[in-house]
């Protein structure tokens, strides 16, 4: 339809004399309905990932902690939805202050309206804000897998609010908000390898160190109570991740398509790789394995999605399956109790993805990107490593401090008896299932 109008207009303008805007002028910021449609959908898709993560995690804990676990993700969705519009967005994306943090000019969304912003010139600023908000929601939710089955709900809430403000917002600003990692250093992070995955995993390291192991960890089996729930969660994550990665194109077109395809391909490959490695290693292909492999693939392709070819995505996925499997199967050897393998999947997978971006990126896919090592530019790999290591250091120290503060204020851990009885009853006064009546 639109084409016809355009044709008609062209025909008309053939007779006219004046130009509306010159070809050299900066691209006008006008809302494009197709781009906006895709970004609205992407935002909704990323929103769905957080409850999906809740299912993914909750299926892996023991029955007595199912609600406590699922609720941590759900509460992040609720709490960060409010924090983000109040001060999260402006700290992350508000006018840059020395490459370090965004200013408070956009506090309470003041000045964030229906017109496009510089961040995304074809969609309303509000959509960009909301899309980014969904990333801010899932990141602290990811951390909760590390301290599942033993952390106080109050402590989790307080820690997450502080962490979002003092860790997530600055890091996000550095990478995407005009801060030093993205704008100055020039590291590539298409959809959040650093900001989301490495970030949450390094916070998870700090958390498991400070909070300690679950009672009985390593001695009594702690089998997952509902694996179909976990697989359902993994499926929703995969589905939502199309919004996460392909949405990071911020437009609906070729770049989104590439990111969509690399995401799906790497994920399938990583799932197969994890499954086959476990099959060889332990003799059986597991359902949890294939689901975990898929998540590892999603994580690893995240920073690379819009910069690499589908064939590179196969390699990135295969690598993710193998290294993440190795990492989690070695976990029992380390002394720490990262209940649901946040470190092994998001930390290791995210790091691999960030490195792989330095290897496989190519401007043939995305002219706004860079070439990686395998396309003749070793510099990018170095850049990526600097970004990774800086993130490690900053996030680890800052998270540690916040955890200590929260521990002093409300205490991080539930009592031994509450842990034995389960968080559902002890902390929330509820029972996950009642199949009797």
């Amino acid at each position: 339809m639109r084409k016809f109008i355009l044709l008609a207009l062209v025909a008309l303008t053939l007779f006219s004399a004046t130009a509306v805007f010159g070809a050299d002028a900066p691209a006008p910021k006008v809302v494009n309905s197709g781009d906006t449609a895709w970004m609205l959908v992407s935002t909704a898709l990323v929103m769905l990932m957080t409850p999906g993560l809740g299912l993914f995690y909750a299926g892996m804990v023991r029955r007595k902690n199912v609600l406590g676990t699922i609720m941590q993700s759900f509460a992040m969705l609720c709490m960060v939805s409010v924090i983000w519009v109040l001060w999260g967005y402006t700290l992350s994306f508000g006018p840059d202050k020395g490459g370090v943090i965004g200013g408070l000019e956009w506090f309470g969304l003041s000045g964030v309206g229906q017109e496009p912003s510089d961040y995304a010139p074809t969609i309303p600023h509000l959509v960009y804000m909301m899309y980014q908000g969904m990333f801010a929601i899932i990141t602290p939710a990811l951390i909760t897998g590390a301290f599942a089955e033993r952390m106080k709900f109050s402590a989790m809430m307080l820690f997450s609010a502080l962490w979002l403000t003092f860790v997530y917002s600055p890091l996000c600003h550095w990478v995407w908000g005009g801060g030093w990692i993205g704008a100055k250093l020039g590291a590539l992070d298409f959809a959040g390898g650093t900001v989301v995955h490495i970030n949450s995993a390094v916070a998870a390291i700090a958390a498991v160190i400070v909070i300690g192991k679950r009672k009985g960890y390593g001695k009594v089996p702690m089998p997952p109570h509902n694996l179909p729930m976990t697989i359902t969660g993994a499926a929703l994550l995969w589905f939502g991740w199309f919004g996460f990665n392909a949405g990071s194109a911020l437009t609906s077109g070729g770049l989104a398509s590439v990111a969509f395809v690399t995401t799906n391909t790497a994920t399938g490959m990583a799932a197969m790789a994890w499954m086959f490695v476990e099959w060889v290693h332990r003799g059986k292909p597991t359902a949890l394995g294939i689901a975990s492999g898929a998540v590892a693939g999603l994580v690893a392709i995240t920073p690379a999605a819009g910069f690499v070819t589908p064939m590179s995505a196969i390699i990135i996925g295969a690598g993710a399956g193998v290294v993440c499997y190795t990492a989690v199967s070695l976990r029992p050897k380390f002394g720490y109790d990262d209940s649901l393998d946040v470190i092994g999947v998001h930390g290791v997978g995210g790091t691999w993805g960030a490195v792989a971006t330095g290897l496989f990126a190519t401007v043939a896919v995305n002219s706004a990107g860079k070439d990686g090592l395998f396309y003749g530019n070793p510099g990018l790999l170095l850049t990526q490593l600097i970004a990774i290591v800086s993130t490690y250091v900053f996030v680890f120290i800052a998270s540690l401090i916040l955890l200590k503060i929260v521990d002093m204020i409300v205490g991080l851990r539930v009592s031994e008896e509450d842990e034995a009885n389960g968080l559902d009853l002890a902390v929330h006064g509820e029972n996950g299932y009642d199949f009797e009546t």
Partner: protein
Amino acid sequence: MKKIEAIIKPFKLEEVKDALSAINIQGMTMLEVKGFGRQKGHTELYRGSEYVVDFIPKIKIELVVADDMVEGVIKTIEKTAWTGKIGDGKIFVSSIEETMRIRTGERGEIAL
């Protein structure tokens, strides 16, 4: 009256029940249990780790019968629950002193 408790493999339940019906057993009660025994459990996998699960799903059947039925019931269960592999289960017999049918208030063997 005797109570017979039989612990069997779950997939044998249907066969056992049918055989007991065939010898005129009119009532029984069944429940899911987990057993620990010579059949030493199995390993389960969890993200590249193995752990041993000692308790194996079993079905327990409880029936209260008149004394003269005991031998027949035991034999029937033995025959139908048998696979010859470790873990086929056990039968335990004990005494019941009184029985009542709630619906009628009848007591004793007539209530079975």
